[in-house]
């Protein structure tokens, strides 16, 4: 042990005495290790850290959501669970001020907190008895809400808080940091159906459901249990539940489903960066080993065994890697800050990204491993010395061809790794370019949107609600600079939307549950023109389409194509399949498609109905789109004033420019691109530095040869060509190897691509040319140096 300590001490001193070498190696490793530490800290926070609930491994999420009747049946029939709870987000509007203010809240079944294993900081949690229809209005507050709005009042339990939906009695306060899966909320109230219709609407899967498996119950066993229930419900309620399966996912796995692929991809990318960085250091170590041939020979002559020599060299590489890892923590800190800042909304656990002890342990382990693996080859090579020539007086360091071959091979592999990363980044870049050139179907410029959600209690009456929206639209369109205003229940690039089953008049009846689906948007007459959607056939909706007029609708091209192929849809009638009574709606026009959620998604069949003819009392919300003549500065405040003038208790929320909504919709792709692009750029620089190092070393080794060549009449350009040729040969080898690897690996990217194939030749060629250009740049300096060799000096040095 003490000899190991001795090796480490000597290694530390050697590194201190070679500051140039040590700095180069440490900086290189710090970049590679920092990128890895940062990505691991993200993966750890998002995917590996246990969810902040009791025994989180027993929690499962029912995929696809639940309705009230389904939930009741699960609770009654399932045998695999200790409990099942459900919840959904719900805005709570604080009233009483000059303008209403919205608080993010959630409605939860009484059992949910118990299912999650949560505990209250003060008072009590909601319980099973609390979610009866007609029960008292109770609320549990977040720690933040209690502190911020109630001043941390010690007597908060039992107090009442006034929201637009009534006065709520505070029964408890949750500890700081508590949140439900997927739903950010500051207050939780009991979940009860808003209407008898909702209580019985088996097809309205608006609830998020979470279950806690009984101890010892496996996921497959629980799934079997749910499948049996699903089969019973399918038979009993074919209209809503025909062939409907309730798929269980481990809760954690469900929450990270959208980011898992990208994070693993980026983790793979940084592993490549580390490989390249470590290869650079291995190359430096090999060069250094050549320079230390004599020292190694002396050690061997003093009795050092090969193993001891390897250990000595490994001690140096491990020490370098550990110092590199420590320096990498600084780099990691920058990168994690950047990742957290840039990460798209909704990445679970991203706010928990820290360089915590587990991450530090990871860095330490990777550092030691890197030092061992990448020190081993130079160690084995360096420890194999021929004693006699090395110890002979004036012994000249002969170029070891095997070592030079190894260094060349390392550079080839670096170039190959860099090419794989660059191809990945190139494909993502082209995807994003293609995506951003997609026409969303409307003009997003100078279009500002906001949301109004009047409380059900006061605006459950549809005509009253319609008047409210019309009043708001009338006032907003009169604002200076506003050229058009329209309202819609579902905005492009806004929240998710609901499909409805419908029937077409004159078509043979279909089996319940098999009717076609259409995406329904309730809009003001001015909405389509505000967005700039042109009417392709028939007419647009008009202010004359009132509640008492014949019911009409405009469909989009996708609906015309899919549901009326080869027919003229104008004049055809449709009706909602699940409506309590059949109300026929006549199609009066066809408008162009818009991208509804993402630029990458083709528009689905959609139907626009006049908001005055809305049939769904529960659909109280409306999004308003405002088109302005100039950049919409100060519009939000003006809009708030106008809305408050109509009803001061309705908050104006989600004020966003449409351009921003579209930008946000591509944010995950941009995030992946920026990170992968950044890592690929780093890889490119490191590979360039590696190539530069190897070529410089080779030139130094061949100084005499260059001198002879110049003495024999070689022109500087001949020497430059010779050196560049050597570098480019290595590069092309790496490009060929990397292209083959990329062809195999880029398919893992295919789900992230848009409008470009994973084997896109233009990307491959472009990236290869970029690498060759960087390689030429990296080789140019050593080539120039070789060309300037003075034959006299070079030959005298012999």
């Amino acid at each position, binding site marked *: 042990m*003490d*000899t190991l300590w*001795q090796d480490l001490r*000597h290694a530390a*001193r*050697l590194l201190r*005495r070679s500051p140039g070498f040590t700095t180069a190696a440490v900086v290189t490793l710090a970049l590679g290790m920092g990128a890895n530490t940062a990505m691991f800290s993200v993966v750890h926070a998002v995917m590996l850290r246990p969810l902040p609930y009791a025994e989180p491994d027993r929690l499962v999420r029912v995929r696809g959501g639940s309705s009230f009747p389904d939930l009741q049946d699960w609770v009654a029939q399932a045998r695999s669970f200790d409990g099942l709870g459900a919840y959904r987000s719900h805005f709570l509007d604080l009233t009483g001020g000059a303008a209403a203010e919205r608080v993010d809240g959630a409605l939860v079944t009484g059992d949910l907190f118990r299912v999650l294993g949560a505990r209250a900081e003060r008072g009590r949690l909601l319980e099973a008895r609390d979610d009866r229809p007609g029960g008292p209005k109770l609320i549990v507050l977040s720690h933040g809400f209690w502190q911020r709005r109630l001043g941390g009042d010690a007597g908060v339990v039992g107090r009442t808080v006034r929201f637009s939906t009534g006065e709520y009695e505070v029964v408890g306060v949750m500890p700081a940091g508590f949140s439900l899966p997927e739903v950010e909320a500051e207050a939780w109230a009991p979940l009860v159906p808003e209407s008898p219709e909702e209580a019985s609407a088996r097809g309205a899967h608006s609830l998020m459901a979470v279950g806690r498996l009984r101890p010892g119950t496996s996921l497959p066993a629980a799934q079997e249990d749910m499948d049996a229930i699903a089969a019973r419900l399918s038979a009993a309620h074919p209209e809503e539940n025909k062939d409907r399966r309730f798929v269980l996912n481990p809760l954690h796995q469900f929450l990270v489903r959208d980011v898992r692929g990208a994070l693993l991809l980026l983790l793979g990318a940084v592993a490549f960066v580390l490989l390249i960085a470590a290869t650079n250091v291995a190359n430096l170590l090999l060069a250094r080993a050549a320079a230390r041939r*004599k*020292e190694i020979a*002396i*050690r061997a*002559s*003093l*009795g*050092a*065994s090969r193993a*001891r020599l390897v250990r000595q060299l490994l001690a140096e590489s491990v020490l370098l890697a550990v110092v590199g890892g420590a320096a990498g923590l600084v780099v990691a800190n920058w990168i994690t800050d950047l990742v957290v800042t840039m990460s798209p909304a909704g990445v679970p656990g991203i706010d928990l990204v820290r360089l915590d002890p587990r991450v530090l342990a990871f860095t330490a382990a990777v550092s030691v491993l890197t030092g061992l693996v990448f020190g081993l080859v130079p160690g084995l090579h360096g420890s194999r010395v021929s*004693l*006699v020539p090395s*110890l*002979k*007086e004036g012994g000249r360091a002969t170029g070891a061809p095997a070592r030079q071959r190894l260094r060349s091979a390392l550079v080839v592999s670096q170039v190959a790794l860099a090419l794989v990363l660059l191809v990945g980044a190139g494909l993502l870049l082209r995807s994003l370019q293609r995506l951003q050139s997609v026409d969303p179907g409307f003009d997003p410029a100078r279009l500002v949107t906001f949301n109004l959600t009047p409380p059900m209690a006061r605006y459950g009456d549809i005509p009253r609600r319609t008047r409210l929206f019309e009043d708001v639209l009338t006032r907003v369109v009169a604002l200076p600079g506003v050229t058009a205003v329209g309202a819609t229940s579902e905005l492009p690039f806004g929240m998710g939307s609901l499909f409805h089953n419908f029937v077409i008049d004159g078509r043979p009846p279909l089996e319940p549950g098999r009717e076609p689906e259409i995406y329904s948007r309730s809009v003001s007459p001015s909405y389509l023109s505000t967005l700039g959607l042109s009417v392709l056939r028939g007419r647009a909706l008009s202010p004359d389409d009132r509640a008492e007029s014949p019911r009409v609708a405009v469909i989009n091209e996708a609906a015309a194509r899919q549901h009326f192929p080869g027919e003229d849809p104008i004049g055809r009638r449709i009706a909602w399949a699940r409506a309590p009574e059949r109300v026929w709606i006549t199609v009066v026009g066809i408008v162009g498609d818009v991208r509804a959620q993402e630029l990458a998604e083709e528009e689905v069949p959609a139907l626009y109905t006049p908001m005055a003819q809305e049939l769904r009392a529960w659909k109280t919300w409306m999004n308003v789109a405002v088109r302005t003549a100039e950049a919409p500065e100060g519009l939000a405040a003006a809009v708030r004033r106008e809305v408050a003038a109509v009803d001061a208790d309705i908050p104006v929320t989600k004020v966003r420019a449409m351009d921003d909504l579209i930008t946000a919709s591509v944010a995950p792709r941009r995030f992946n691109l920026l990170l992968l692009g950044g890592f690929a750029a780093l890889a490119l620089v490191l590979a360039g530095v590696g190539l530069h190092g190897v070529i410089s070393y080779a030139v130094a080794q061949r100084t005499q040869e260059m001198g002879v060549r110049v003495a024999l009449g070689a022109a500087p350009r001949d020497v430059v060509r010779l050196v560049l040729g050597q570098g480019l040969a290595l590069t092309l080898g790496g490009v060929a190897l990397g292209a083959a690897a990329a062809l195999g690996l880029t398919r893992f990217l295919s789900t992230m691509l848009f409008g470009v194939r994973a084997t896109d030749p233009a990307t491959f060629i472009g990236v290869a040319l970029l690498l060759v250009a960087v390689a030429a740049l990296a080789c140019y300096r050593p080539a120039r140096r070789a060309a300037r060799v003075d034959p006299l000096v070079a030959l005298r040095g012999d």
Partner: protein
Amino acid sequence: MIQIRNLEKAYEQGGGKVFVLRRINVDVNEGDFVSIMGPSGAGKSTLLHVLGMHDSAWTGEYTLAGQPVHKMGRKERMELQKKNIGFVFQSYHLLDDLTVYENLEIPLSYRDVKKSERQSIVADVLDRFQIVGKKDLYPSQLSGGQQQLVAVARAVVASPKLILADEPTGNLHSEQGREIMQLFRKLNQEGTTIVQVTHSEVNATYGHRIIKLRDGWVVD
């Protein structure tokens, strides 16, 4: 101590063989102080490296301390070398990044001597060679003579029976050279067998006998 029979060493060159050592037969007894002399290229250093087991590409028989080196594998040779031989080189070959103390300690460390024991042996050698005051200096901070003194100290630190010295005074001026040779004589008188390669007739007089080499042959 050393018996060599029909030892030959050759290089392959241009389809033929170039002999560096030819049919060498040498005996060195325990307690001998032998000087190998001859013109440049005669094979002196090569013979010394063969004796020191730095070179294993030779034929013939070589017995050291009763052990047949020619029948041994690499590891056994290394063990035999570690146990019996200390080296002194013309250009000292101290490890530049280690202090004097550490340069003396390293051969012991390679022989797995315990730390406490190493400390006491090194302290003893520092004392014997009167270089205690220099123990924390690096080789670059010493004169040539001092460096060679440390090199000799390093050669004897593991108490070898045999010291092989390759032109040990070649890089020293005459006074420093004389001191080193006197040191060798003293070590020899204390029982250490010494084989040195030298060009210097004066240095050869410190030894008991001379082996002369020319073109790879022993010529005396």
